[in-house]
C-alpha cells in the first residue's frame, strides 16, 4: 500500500490561446515531479502527475477538478485564468483537498470565500504596482498614459500602480487612459488617442500573451508612439518577444524570475530544474513554468515535514511559513497564502530580456 504513488492533479489550459503556456507549465510540474521522485519522493512514495485541460473555461475547469477529485488526488495545482480558479476553488475546497494556485492573479482568490486555506505563488497586483511606480518615479516623467485591459486584473494592476505612485508622493499627469477588452488584437484606435496625448511613459497592461501584448507592442512601434513603453509585471514572456519581433526592442518590463540571472543563475535548485526541463522537454523554463514547478516543490517540502497529505496541516505549514532551497531560493508565504516575491526591471535588447543592474 505504501508503494502506491501519490496522485497530484494539475489543471491548466492545454488548448486555445493560452494552450502553449499551459502545456509548458504542466511540463515544468512534471520535470519537478521527476526531480522529487529521483530524490526519494514524498514520504517515501513516488508522485504521479494527473494533468487536465481546463480550456480556459470555468465550467470545464470545474468538471476537470471533479474528475481529479474522484480519482483521489492529494493536491491540485491549478490556475492560469482567474475566473477558472475562482470557479474551481469551492469545488476543491468542499472535497477537502489542498488547492495551490500557481498563476491566476485575481485578489479574491486569497479572500478565503472560495477556499479559506488558499495558497498562491504568482505575485499579487499590489506587489507588482510598487516596482513599476518606483521606475516611473525614477524617470521623473510627468506625462503618463495607461493602456489597460478592461477586467479585474487590468484595472486592479493600474489601480495599484497609481496607489503606489501616490504613496511615493509623486506628482504626474494621467494624459491618456485607454481600456480595451481582453481579446483585442487591433489597438490602432486606442494608440491614436494615446499618441495624440504625447505621453512620456505609456504603461501597457495586457495579460493576453498570445495575441494582445505582442500586437500592442508592434502597433505601438509602427504608429511611432512617443515616449517609453512600459509593460506591467509579468506580461512579457519570451513567447511575447518572439511574436512581437524587433518591435519589442526597447520595451521595459519587470518580472520575478529570470532563469539565467543572479540570484537564480547560481541557485542549485533552479539549475537542477532548468537542466531537468531541458532534458525532458528541450525547453528553457520561463517564469510561469518556474511558478508551476515551485508549487509542487513547496507542497512536497511541506508534506514531507508535517508527514501528512491532508489539506489542513500542509496548508497551515505553507501559509505564513518559509522554505529554503526552492527554485526561487529561500522564500516565505504571507499569512493569507501569498508568496512574497522579488521583482526586477528589465529592458528588451536584441529581442532578449536584459535585467537592469540598477534595480534590486
Amino acid at each position, binding site marked *: 500500500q505504501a508503494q502506491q504513488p501519490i496522485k497530484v492533479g494539475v489543471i491548466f489550459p492545454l488548448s486555445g490561446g493560452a494552450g502553449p503556456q499551459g502545456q509548458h507549465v504542466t511540463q515544468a510540474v512534471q520535470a519537478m515531479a521527476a526531480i522529487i521522485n529521483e530524490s526519494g519522493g514524498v514520504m517515501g512514495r513516488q508522485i504521479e502527475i494527473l494533468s487536465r485541460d481546463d480550456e480556459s473555461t470555468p465550467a470545464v475547469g470545474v468538471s476537470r477538478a471533479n474528475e481529479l477529485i474522484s480519482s483521489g488526488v492529494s493536491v491540485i495545482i491549478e490556475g492560469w485564468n482567474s475566473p477558472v480558479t475562482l470557479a474551481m476553488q469551492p469545488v476543491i475546497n468542499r472535497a477537502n483537498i489542498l488547492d495551490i494556485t500557481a498563476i491566476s492573479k485575481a485578489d479574491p482568490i486569497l479572500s478565503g470565500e472560495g477556499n479559506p486555506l488558499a495558497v498562491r505563488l504568482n505575485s499579487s497586483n499590489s506587489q507588482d504596482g510598487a516596482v513599476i511606480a518606483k521606475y516611473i518615479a525614477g524617470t521623473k516623467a510627468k506625462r503618463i498614459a495607461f493602456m489597460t485591459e478592461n477586467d479585474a486584473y487590468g484595472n486592479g494592476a493600474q489601480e495599484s500602480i497609481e496607489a503606489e505612485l501616490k504613496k511615493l508622493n509623486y506628482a504626474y499627469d494621467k494624459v491618456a487612459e485607454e481600456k480595451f477588452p481582453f481579446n483585442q488584437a487591433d489597438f490602432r484606435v486606442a494608440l491614436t488617442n494615446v*499618441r495624440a496625448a504625447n505621453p512620456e511613459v505609456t504603461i501597457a497592461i495586457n495579460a493576453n500573451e498570445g495575441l494582445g501584448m505582442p500586437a500592442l507592442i508592434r502597433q505601438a512601434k509602427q504608429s511611432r508612439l512617443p515616449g517609453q513603453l512600459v509593460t506591467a509585471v509579468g506580461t512579457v514572456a519570451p513567447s511575447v518577444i518572439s511574436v512581437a519581433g524587433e518591435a519589442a526592442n526597447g520595451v521595459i518590463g519587470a518580472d520575478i524570475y529570470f532563469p539565467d540571472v543572479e540570484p537564480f543563475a547560481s541557485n542549485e535548485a533552479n539549475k537542477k530544474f532548468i537542466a531537468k526541463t531541458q532534458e525532458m522537454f528541450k525547453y528553457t523554463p520561463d517564469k510561469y513554468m518556474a511558478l508551476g514547478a515551485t508549487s509542487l516543490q513547496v507542497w512536497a517540502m511541506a508534506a514531507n515535514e508535517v508527514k501528512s497529505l491532508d489539506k489542513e496541516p500542509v496548508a497551515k505549514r505553507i501559509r505564513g511559513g518559509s522554505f529554503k532551497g526552492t527554485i526561487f531560493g529561500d522564500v516565505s508565504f504571507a499569512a493569507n497564502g501569498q508568496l512574497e516575491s522579488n521583482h526586477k526591471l528589465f529592458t528588451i535588447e536584441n529581442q532578449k530580456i536584459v535585467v537592469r543592474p540598477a534595480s534590486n
Partner: protein
Amino acid sequence: MNFSQQLVNGIVLGHAYALIAIGWTVLLGVARLVNFGHGQMYMLGAFVTWYGVSRLGLPYFVAIPVAMLAGVAVGYVMQRVMLQLTLKQDLVSIMIVTLGFGYVLHGAAALFFGSTGQILETPFSTKDIYWGDLWFTYQDIAIVIVAILFFAALKYVIDRTRIGRLARMVAEDPQLAQLAGVNVRRVYLGVFAFEGAAVALAAALVAPRTPILTSMGFDEVIITFVVVVLGGIGSVTGSYVAGLALGLFTAFFGAFVSPAYATAAAFAVLIAVLVIRPGGLAVSPGGR
C-alpha cells in the same frame, strides 16, 4: 483625439470588415445559406497564407491564391456534405452543421499549425506610410482598394450577369430553378466555393494587421453577421455600406468613449436599428 487619423483607422477597418463579410453576403443574401464556420475559414485562410510565406517561402502573391484554393476546397467539401440539407432548405440544421465544421477546422488547424501566435508578414504590411501626422501601411491601402474592386465586381455580377441570376433563382426556389435548366447542385457548390475563396482572400489581406492564432475567427464571424444583417440581407451595396459604417463607428466610438465597449455599443446600435427597421439599412426596390 486625432480626428483624421481616426478617420483613416475607421475607413481601413470598415473596408476590412466589408471584405471579410463578402463571402457570406453572397451566401446569405444570394443563396439564403448561412455559414457559422466562416470565422474558422478566415483563420484557415490566414494560416495557409502564413504557412506558404514563412514556412514554404512562397512569395505573398503566390501564397494568396494557394490560400484561396484551400478555401475553395473547404467550401466545396462543406457544401458537398450538406447538399441534402441545402436542397431541403433546412436552415437551422445548416447553421449548426457549419458550426460543427468550424469546430473541426479549429481543432485540426490547432493540431497542425500549433496554437501559438504568429505574425503574417507581407511586403506591404511592413511598409509604413507617414503622412504628416497620419500613419497607415501599404497593406491598409491594399485592403481598401481590393474591397472596393471586389464589391463593384460582385455587384455587377449579381445584378447584371447570368451567373448572378442563376444564384438568385436557386436561392429562391431550387426546384423551380431546375425547371429552368439550372444545375442546382452545381450552383450551391459554386456559391460555397466562392465563399471559401472570398474569405481566404480577405484573410490573406486583413490578417497581416494583427497577430494570428488558430483560436481566432469568433470576432470575424460576428462582424460578418452584423455587416450582412445590418446591410439588409441580400444587398451587396448594403453590406459594403454597413461594413464601412461599422468600421467608422468602431473607430470613433473608441476615440470618443472607449474601445472596451465598442463591440457592445455596436451591438446596441444594431439592435436599435433592427428594431426600428427590421430589414436593415438597405432599401431594395419594391420591398422584399
